[in-house]
Structures are given as C-alpha cells and as structure tokens.
C-alpha cells in the first residue's frame, strides 16, 4: 500500500519526461530521454558508482558531525543561559553569510579532498538542527518544569529527563530538514573544486557533452538523497516512539 503512491508518482514523472522529449523534439544534448539516460547509466556504471560512494560518504559524515555540533550547541545554550547571549548572535551572523560564498574559501583552506565538502555540509546542516532543537528545548511544557521544581529536581536531571525528550520531536523535524539540504553542501563543495564525487562527475560529463551520463549522475544523486531521507525519517519515528503511538491512535479513530 505504502509503496504504490510513490511508484505511481515516479513513473508518472518519467512518463511526462519521455513525452516532452518525444513531442518537443529537443536534441539529446539538451534533454536526453529516460531510456537514453538509463542506457548511459549502464555503460558508465563503474565511474558512476565510484563517484556516488564519495558523495555519500561526504553527506553522511557531514550529517553526523553537523547534527552532533548542532545538538551540542543547542544544549549548551539551554544549560548555560548566559552563554546563549554570546552564541546566538554568532550563530545568526554565521547564517547571514551565504554558505555558497564560503565554498571557495573552504576548498582553499581544507584542500581538494573530502574534508572541504564535509565542512560545507556541516555548515549547511548546523543551523536547522540547532534552531529546531533549541526551540524544542526552550518550549518545554511549563507545568512539567513546575512539577519538577516542587520535586526539588536537579537542573541537569530536568534537562536529561524532561527537556531533551520533550524536544526530540522538534529535533526530529530539524534533522529532516537537515537531511534534505545536506546533499547541497556536498555537491556545491564538489563543484568548486574536487576530483571525485557526483558533483564533480556532473561537471566533467557536462564539459564533454555526455549529457545523458550527467543525467544519470543526477538521477543517482536523487536516489541517494531520497534513500537517506527515508532512513532518517524512519529513525526519527523510532526516536519519538510515543508520538507514533499517538499518531496511530488518531489515525485509527478516523
């Protein structure tokens, strides 16, 4: 049941693509049809997969590091209130600089290898994770905190047992956004300067007029992004298990 709809959408989009190619008569070096792209994917499967691995590693490493620092940053701001006033402006300023504009610098500082792409991804992910998690940590039900106060709760125990769990749904939505934008960081990093990865391979094939291979790389990137999002979504649903039960209850009531 769950897979029928995405499949219909997928094949629908491919059908529209094929129709446009057939009816408009665009040359293949502008817009190759899906069949041509599939053929190109088959004939270049080796380098395509090779470059995919590089990009996937960059995205996943960026996701982990960015999520870790983002969550840590939010926790520090909530646990040590005075620090918040210093960290928050830094955070906002860091977001005022377009991250894309930093890409050449990062390549200059960190080199052509993976680390500059990972840094790029971390920079992009960091903010949505911090903002969402911090918001969640801040908007804990005040009556829970009041109850904890009457119980003579230890401040760190309140953060651990009440604030963090109650912020997990917000954290989860932040991480979903982060997962959706993470590939941008890796790809932009590769465009600016690299010798490996799907972003690099797209530029490379584009320059050699292998547009069908470039489309195959793009399709692979889509698959990677969707798979990643799907996995993170599943993990997040497990993480906020109590909400899942609530959702199911509401669903069955309908």
């Amino acid at each position, binding site marked *: 049941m769950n897979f029928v709809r995405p499949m219909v959408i997928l094949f629908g989009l491919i059908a529209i693509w094929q129709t446009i190619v057939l009816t408009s008569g665009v040359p293949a070096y502008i817009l190759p049809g899906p069949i041509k792209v599939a053929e190109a994917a088959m004939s270049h499967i080796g380098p395509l997969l090779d470059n995919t691995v590089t990009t996937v590693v960059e995205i996943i490493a960026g996701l982990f590091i960015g999520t870790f620092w983002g969550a840590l940053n939010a926790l520090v701001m909530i646990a040590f209130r005075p620090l918040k006033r210093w960290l928050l402006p830094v955070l906002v300023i860091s977001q005022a600089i377009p991250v894309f504009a930093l890409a050449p610098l990062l390549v200059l500082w960190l080199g052509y290898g993976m680390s500059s792409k990972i840094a790029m991804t971390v920079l992009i992910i960091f903010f949505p994770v911090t903002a969402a998690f911090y918001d969640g940590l801040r908007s804990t039900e005040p009556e829970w905190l*009041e*109850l904890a106060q009457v119980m003579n709760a230890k401040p760190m125990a309140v953060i651990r*047992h009440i604030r963090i769990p109650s912020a997990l749904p917000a954290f989860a939505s932040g991480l979903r956004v982060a997962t959706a934008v993470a590939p941008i960081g890796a790809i932009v990093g590769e465009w600016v300067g690299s010798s490996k990865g799907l972003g690099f391979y797209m530029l490379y094939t584009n320059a050699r007029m292998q547009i069908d291979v470039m489309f195959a790389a793009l399709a692979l990137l889509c698959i990677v992004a969707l798979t990643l999002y799907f996995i993170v979504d599943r993990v997040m649903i497990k993480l906020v298990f*109590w909400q899942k039960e609530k959702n199911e*209850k509401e669903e069955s009531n309908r």
Partner: protein
Amino acid sequence: MHTHTKSNIESDVRSTAPSISLEQVSFSYPGEQIFHSLNFTVKGGQWTCLIGPSGCGKSTLLRLISGTLHEGLSGNIRFGDGEGRRRPTAWMAQKDLLLPWLNVVDNVCLGARLRNEMSGQKRLRAISLLKDAGLGDYVNALPSALSGGMRQRVALLRTLMEERSVILMDEPFSALDVLTRLKLQDLAARLVEGATVLMVTHDPLEALRLGHRIYVMTGRPATLSDPLVPPGAPPRNAGDPAIISMQAILIDRLENREIL
C-alpha cells in the same frame, strides 16, 4: 463507600504532619493585588479544601505555598513550627502531567529520577502502589495507553511516592467524569490519610466529601471565610442528607460572596 476505622483514633492523636501557616501574606501581579495581609492556617494532618470562583487566587495561593511562585511575595509561609531546610510539599495538578515517553512505573518514580535518587527499592515500592491502586497490569504501559481516570490515578501515586507530609492539589479530579471522580476521591482519601492536604476545587460536593475543613475564598484582594466543618470523617457519602443540606449552604455562601 470506603469505611474509616482509623478515623476516631486519628482525630485524638496529634498527627505528625505539619501545619501550614501563612502570616501577613501579600502578593500582587502587575497592576493587581491578589492577597493583602492574608493570615491563614491549614491544620496539620487534615484535608483542607479551598473553594471559590475562578480567578480568585486559589491556584496562586497553592503556588506560593509550593514555592514555584515567589517573586512579589511578602509575608511568611511556615510549615509546622519552624522553617525546614526543604519545603515538605508535593504537587498534584488538574492535568496529570505524565511524561509520555516514560512508562507508568517510571512516571510514578519521576521525583526520585529527577533527584538522582532512583533505586530498585523505589521501583518495587512504586509497583506495589500501582498494584494496590488496581494498575498492576499497566506497570510497563505508556501513558497513552491509559484512560483519563487511570492517568490521574498514576499522577496521584506519583504524588504519594514523594512521601511528603504536605500535599497540594489544584483541582486534581475536575477533568474526570462523575463516577471516575468519586472512585478517585475515595482512593485519594485512603492513600493520603495522615498527610496535610490543601486542595483547591470548584466542586462543592467534592469539598464536602473530602474536606475536614472547607474555606470559601472570594474578593480582590482575596479573603477567606470561616471554616465549614462537615460532620463525620472523609470520604463522606455523597447521598448523606447532612452533606446535601451543607452543599446548599456552601453554594449559598459562594453566591452571596460573589455579589459582594
């Protein structure tokens, strides 16, 4: 109805649970004085009910006593003879405030967790409390699997687990249907016996069933009536003619005061 065999002895023996004394308590919200030089004593070891119209300051008074509200407070709030190092209060609200990610027994043990005092012994005690309250089958269930009445029962047990001598209740049963409410009142009366209870309520019948003493709170700044002392030991039978006639008196008082 639950019968009380201990109640006669209880009234003779001075309970160890402390009284709550408010001396010259004044408190204002910006632009509005809620209390002005209020003097009020809640008897130790008894169940005292506070009844009055919405917004008259009942909940504010509970928060002042619990210590969650202290900015803008002047005057003295004492427990027993002196000022203990730690407030001896436990809190039960209208909402059950169960944490949805903790199972029932962990919710009951919340206080111990939050003080980093959790132990296997505490857990066993919580389980035996749950069994006693008819929730033995739900020890490991999540709160979302429980009905409203069961959730509030868990909240009551969480309050008891604190083993505090003063229990503050803010309309704890008002969100429940009538039958569930009556059952829970009986359970509460049985379980908290001997503690000093101060309960805020909207419901005259509830006050008359449970209170050793009932005060009506009205006006701004708020004042308290003389106590009403219903006959017999709580929990009283809702059908008792004496209770029914007192309910009329209580409603009268509430209405008259509101006009003033």
